[in-house]
């Protein structure tokens, strides 16, 4: 009987260990694949506020591209949007693309109004209604910032709340790095 229980315990531990190991290997491979994919701007489309599809390659290729992945209810994203709104002039030389997985159009519009994002000519807000962003960019946390040079190669990315100075500095480097 004792041997029987011992066998069951060993089997349960082995199954848990095997499952975790499989998940870790799978997750690590996915992460590496995503890291490789984002080195060049992925060919991916999101919906604009009006509902029309917009591809990330559609934006002006002469400007560096800053992609901000956010959610209107996220406190850190509010801070980041506020920073961008307050330093709008510093972002004049680049194209800002704000992507959100939020399915409430009203909430997204309120967010943009609160932080004066509508007033920025070079800012586009896109809706990721099918959660494609995370599939392509990996497990991007909210907020995340991806900065692409004019040749659409990834310069750097920031995970989590980021000061606008860091983003501006990175975009300034885009002119020298390609």
């Amino acid at each position: 009987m004792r041997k029987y229980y011992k066998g069951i315990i060993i089997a349960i531990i082995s199954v848990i260990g095997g499952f975790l190991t499989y998940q870790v290997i799978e997750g690590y491979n996915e992460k590496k694949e995503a890291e490789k994919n984002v080195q060049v701007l992925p060919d991916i489309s999101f919906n604009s506020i009006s509902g029309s599809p917009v591809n990330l390659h559609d934006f002006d290729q002469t400007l560096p591209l800053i992609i901000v992945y956010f959610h209107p209810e996220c406190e850190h994203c509010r801070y980041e949007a506020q920073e961008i709104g307050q330093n709008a002039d510093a972002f004049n030389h680049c194209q800002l693309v704000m992507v959100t997985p939020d399915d409430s159009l009203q909430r997204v519009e309120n967010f943009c109004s609160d932080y004066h994002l509508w007033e920025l000519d070079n800012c586009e807000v896109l809706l990721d209604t099918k959660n494609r962003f995370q599939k392509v960019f990996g497990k991007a946390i909210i907020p995340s910032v991806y900065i692409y040079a004019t040749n659409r190669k990834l310069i750097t990315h920031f995970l989590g709340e980021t000061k606008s100075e860091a983003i501006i500095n990175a975009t300034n480097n885009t002119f020298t790095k390609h």
Partner: protein
Amino acid sequence: MSDFIYILAGLVKLIILIFFKQVNTLDDLQFQPFSIMELLNKNTVDPLFLYPLSLINIFELGYFLILAWLLVGVINETNGERPVKFGKSLQLVTTSYGSGLLLWVVLVMFITLNLN
């Protein structure tokens, strides 16, 4: 008794932090003295492997050896007719504590991967 080695590890870390290492950020506190991680550049290592590489250190190795050594005495005291040697005891420690530790490391890696 063998757990005392972790107190020693803590003391060594404290001494290094006070006398030999400059601490600027919270990240500077996250290191394990005499571990493989200390031989590598932290920026080049994937965050997933930080914990496993930090765990391979002199103190962990010492814990294995001391636990096995102390276990020889305990086993022989209770089972005097069939005395065990250090090697057998080390094997016992490796299969029991070692497998548990391995499972723990995989769990930490799983959590790290899913939270990052």
